[in-house]
Structures are given as structure tokens and as C-alpha cells.
């Protein structure tokens, strides 16, 4: 059967039943996006490729646990990938005595965030525009957390801002991004 027209949710359902063609199709759809995320977070190609492989292996083994009531399949897939990245990042950093490593990560992501030249794809352009529209201090918190894997306490320490302020900035940034998503009609479904 031709599976190309199947939704992500339908593919996950088939993967839960050990359909190899379905996992291959899902891989073809999203492996490059996950590779991009892993590269952005980890900055190292070989490690990023390990993340891609581990993510899809996890999808293969855990597809029967996917609950469509709790969110779109794409969110679930990306959450697995992101979780793998952050886990790997923290593991690697703890093995290199953390502090210096985290400083490097912070600099890399703050300085390289929202690349203006990366608007070749319409959706990505919209995403980056929305991110860029956030006040700098809110965008910084989101990027340090999401791409840098830093905890709220670490962000407070590194930016020299009180923890409560960091909390507020994260909450406001999420609200604004959510509102922006609605304006541009973005959906993960």
C-alpha cells in the first residue's frame, strides 16, 4: 500500500505494529530536521547522527506508547529528539567538568541564534522571525534553555538575573511565541 499520503499519526500507528515501511517514511520526512536540531544543540556531526539514529530507534520501540490525545505525532517525535540531545549535551558536559563547557555552549547559541540567512524555507523563516520578534532577554532565555540545555538556575547564574525574573521571561516568551504561532496559522498537526 502507498503510505506517502499517510499522516504522521497514522505512520506512528503502523510503526507500533512493526511496519518497517512506515518508519522509513517517517525517517525520510523528519531525519534532516532532527539532524538540524541535533547539530544546533550539539554542534558535532557524528554525535548529531547518533542522535538521529537513537531517536528513530526509540520511535520504533515506543510507538505503542504514543498517545494522540496528548499532542501531535510531530511534537512527540521532536520531543524525543530534543530530549536525546539535551541528555547527551548534559552527559558530555558533565564529563568535561561542566563550567567551561557550558560557557562555550552559551556563547555559541546566543551569538548564533536566529540566523537571518536561514530563511530558505517559508516555515523556518516564520519561526525565526517570530523568535527574532521576542525581546532580546526573553529570546536569550528560550535559546539558552531549549538549545543550550541549561536549567533555569543555570540561566539565572550565567545571566546574573534573579531566578524569578528568568521564570517570568520564560513564561512570557512562550506566551508570545504561542500567540505568534496562532497569528501565522502554525500548527504541529
Amino acid at each position, binding site marked *: 500500500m502507498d503510505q506517502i499520503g499517510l499522516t504522521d499519526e497514522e505512520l506512528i500507528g503502523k510503526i507500533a505494529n512493526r511496519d518497517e515501511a512506515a518508519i522509513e517514511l517517517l525517517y525520510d520526512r523528519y531525519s*534532516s530536521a532532527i539532524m538540524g536540531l541535533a547539530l544546533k544543540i550539539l554542534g558535532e556531526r557524528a554525535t548529531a547522527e547518533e542522535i538521529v539514529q537513537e531517536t528513530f530507534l526509540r520511535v520504533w520501540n515506543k510507538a505503542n506508547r504514543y498517545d494522540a490525545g496528548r499532542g501531535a505525532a510531530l*511534537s512527540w517525535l521532536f520531543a524525543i529528539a530534543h530530549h536525546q540531545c539535551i541528555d547527551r549535551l548534559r552527559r558530555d558536559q558533565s564529563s568535561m567538568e561542566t563550567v567551561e563547557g557550558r560557557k562555550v555552549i552559551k556563547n555559541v547559541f546566543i551569538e548564533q541564534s536566529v540566523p537571518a540567512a536561514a530563511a530558505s524555507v517559508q516555515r523556518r523563516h516564520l519561526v525565526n522571525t517570530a523568535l527574532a520578534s521576542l525581546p532580546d532577554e526573553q529570546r536569550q532565555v528560550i535559546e539558552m534553555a531549549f538549545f543550550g*540545555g541549561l536549567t533555569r538556575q543555570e540561566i539565572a547564574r550565567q545571566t546574573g538575573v534573579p531566578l524569578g525574573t528568568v521564570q517570568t521571561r520564560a513564561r512570557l516568551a512562550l506566551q508570545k511565541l504561542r500567540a505568534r504561532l496562532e497569528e501565522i496559522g502554525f500548527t504541529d498537526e
Partner: protein
Amino acid sequence: MSERNTGIDDLLPWYILGTLDSEEQQRVEAYLREDPTAMEYVAQMRPVATFLTLSAEPAAVSSNVKKELFGRIISQPPAPDSASRWLSLKEKLRFAVRSQPMLVVLSLTIAVLSLAWGLVLSARVSVLRNEVSSLQAALANQQRVILHLSDPGSKSIAIAGTELQPEASGRFIFNPGSREGGVIITGLQPLPGDRVYQLWLIKGDVPESAGTFTVDQDGRASILVKAPASISSYDIIGVSVEPVGGSLQPTGEIVVLSPLSPDA
């Protein structure tokens, strides 16, 4: 959400951003199962994380990755149901026995000892529970006896041991119109484990059991007496030694015998 569980609500944005540690993540997930408002917030915000993921520029993955991945996928067993999980466990165990027999023996020994210790503790808990229940019942009886002692309508008669246990003495406190009273007795000899004292209320020459009891090491007991009929209808109170569980009629030595004529 500001008037709600602020501490854990503060974690929700970080849950969305995927930067909580595993302990915090478990706490949040437990909270989400209980709190629909928090769940709704997370459901609303989750697309933001997807959105952020898409901000990364896609990158090509080398073909080896796909090849290796599908090699691993094909080598994996079919979807594990409970039966195959059990089979898989058996296989793993077999492999472990072959590869590291001493470690397996040690692990199994520890597991068996832990299980045995668990059973011992469980049995001990059961014994303690029974003891607690017995003590609670005894305490309830004592409280009833005290109530009879403090009832201004109660009468009290002296009771005395027979020539078999002349040191025994006590008092029977009861309200003549009721079927319940209290006996406080001292000086009875402690009995072997297969024997108990049995209290009798005797009408004419017909004894009726009013319960069994034991005494402490000083020969004391406090017994709640429950009579089949109004206590004033009986003539005599007596105590005999009987097998555990009591008898239908007195069969052993009569150690207490006193008429039920109030002396106070």
C-alpha cells in the same frame, strides 16, 4: 495560574522547553495527570517546542545512518507483548547463566534471601497486627469495665477464691437490671498455655458461660462480663479452669465461687 500551585506551575515552561531533571519531570507529569488546567496549558504550549525545533536549519544525514538504523531495527524482535517479554527475560537469564554463572548465582541468592526476609517481615507484621487488635479489644473491654465502676446505679459484690485458690479475691460490679458488668480479680494463679479461666453465672443449678479470660503474671484480670440474661436473675458467680476455648459446662477445678447478693 498565579493563584494555583505556584511552585510546580513555575516548572511548566521548563517542562515545555525540555530542561527539567528527571525528578522534576516526574513531578510535573504526576501533576499533569491530576490537574486539567495545567494539562491544558502544556497542550497549548507544546507546539512552541515543535516550532522552536523547526528554527534549526535542516541538515543532511549521511546514508550510513539510515542503513545502520534499519540494520538495528530489523535485528530487533517483534513488538513485545507480555508473553514475549517473559520469553525475552528467560533468554536474557539463559545468556546470563552461560556468560556469568557466579554473578547469576549471587544475584539469585540475594533475591531469594530478600524474598525470605520479606516474608519473615510480612509474617511479623501480621503477628503484630493481631497483637494490636487483641490489645485494642482488651482496652475496649477495660473501658467498659471502668464505665460500670463509675456508674452510680452499679452494685458491687465481693468475690472470693475457693480452697483451691484461697488467695483469689475481687469484686463484681454490675447494674442489676443490665446484662453486662465488670469483674476485677487478683490472686489467681497463672495457667499453662492450654488452659483458661472461664466465668460462670449460675441460676439455680444451671451454669451459663460469661466468657473466658487469662490473668497476668501477678494473677490479675479485669473482665467484661456479658450475661445471657439480666444479671439480677442469677444466684452465683463462679470461675473454673477449662481448656482453651472454654467448655459448655464447668469441667475443671472451681477456683472462685460467690453468691450474687450485693454487699455494698
